[in-house]
């Protein structure tokens, strides 16, 4: 019985360390301003090679056709955008 409890406490302690390491990381994130300017962070995945607003993945050999199709389907959103046809 004694050993049983010992292990149970060990597991509970591990769970707490797990939990508090997450709390620690959260604290670090808050201190480092990770929760400010969220919109800017969300754009970090784009770069000059694959910029925002450009679809970057197509079935092989269908890129040109699909790009034109996508551009046509998006046209109503962009009022004043030059026509492509």
């Amino acid at each position: 019985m004694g050993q049983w409890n010992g292990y149970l406490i060990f597991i509970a302690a591990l769970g707490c360390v797990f939990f508090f390491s997450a709390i620690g990381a959260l604290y670090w994130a808050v201190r480092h301003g990770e929760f400010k300017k969220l919109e800017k962070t969300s754009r970090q995945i784009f770069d000059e090679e694959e910029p925002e607003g450009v679809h970057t993945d197509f079935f092989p050999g269908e890129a040109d056709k699909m790009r034109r199709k996508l551009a046509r389907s998006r046209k109503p959103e962009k009022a004043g955008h030059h026509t492509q046809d």
Partner: protein
Amino acid sequence: MSPLLSFFSSIDPRPKPGVPLKVQLSQIDREMRVPIVLFVVSAILWLQAGTVFALIASIKLHNPEFLGNVEWLTFGRARSAHLNAMAFGWGNNAIFAVSLWIMARLCKVSVKHGGLLVVAGAFWNVGVTAGVIGILTGGLTSVEWLEMPPQVAPLLAISFILVAVWGVIMFRYRALGHVYVSQWYILGALFWFPWLYVIAQTMILWLPARGTVQAITNWWFGHNVLGLWLTPMGLASIYYFLPKVLGRPIHSYYLSVLGFWSLALFYNWAGVHHLIGGPIPVWLVSAGIVGSIMMVIPVVVTAINHHMTAAGNWRAVWCSPTLRFIVFGGMSYTLASLAGSAMALRDINVITHFTQFTVGHAHHGVYAFFTMTMFGGIYFMMPRILNREWPSAALIRTHFWCAAIGITIMLVVLHAGGWIQGEMMTALDADGKPKYAFLEIVTALVPWLFSRSISGMLLSIGHLAFLVNFFWMLAGRKGDQDGPTLLADPNEEDVR
């Protein structure tokens, strides 16, 4: 310069100042090419091996005499070989490839000493091979998710640490800017998995705890492999590829961060729900149930976020091989997780426990969510790594449809068959005695299990299409159109 200092400066993966971003990115891809190709090749080969074991195990459930006189392939061994080949062979290799690449891209640093990653990959695969052979020859342990003989654990642990260290080095030297949510998920998972693995190995196999504590540790580990290893890596891929391919940022970055932190805080507690009704303290089970239900928060938050990002762009999703898989994976994550939370409730668990329903749920999470997102990630990553287009659109479509239809059939039949199985096992007659004999229940399951084998065959066809397309690409066949479309100038549509 002292040797120590020169070592540290040699692992500094930051690009030299003044190098244009475009050059940096292609440099990252070039330096990661060999290790990533090694990981993806191993992953795909393990996927095929795991599929063969799966089919053997599945057929044996409705035709027990199938390969009945081969001692290496009894149901127990084939099933465990399947699980370990898929989880540690396919899953981990795919994760190493996709997550390291995403990490490098987001940190804008590359891998120095990539040869060490190759060594880590080689050791990892030797370890898993030895482990699977150990299982097939009867050296398996009776611990679910840790069936490989414990002797291979140090090998796996060392090679994992080698891989994880590179992830951490990249993060340490990341370019200025905030940490993107995918980086959070990957970093968290790289930290959680070795912890889980080492503790479980120690407490169950090396210095075994006694009695039911082993079972508690087992399910703390087993469920967290799904929740704190496969899930964060799948979500990291979705959060990277979904907005990246669509070319529009995630709907609400705030929600994505909230999702990560609530997963980090709640998931760890959920595993004990596997022991509902077992001989362990009730408060522990209750804590596990609370943790499981709390998971509804990150799941719903993530689901809303993914849906709102993709909403209105369904045509764009459909024309991208990556997003077909990624969005299928994202939708499955929502459904599988909500079902999982429901299954942690005692009233539902009493029916689903010990039935095929649980098997269906496991495939919902690991295949329909995790594996599909990894497929998507590999479809996006490989053309950029190899500077070459996928050779066949038809093979990608075959892969997608076989995987999507196959796994949908499998989920329907296992959930339905499992529920019927559970109802029959718990049904009582007027005297309070079991209403059905065990054999009647087994017989009632046969059509469902047979259908599951059919769905498995569909998945196998998909996996073969993936294998052929991948090695075809690796062998260097150029796309038949005007060069690698994915790498063409994205602005050329405006010129036309």
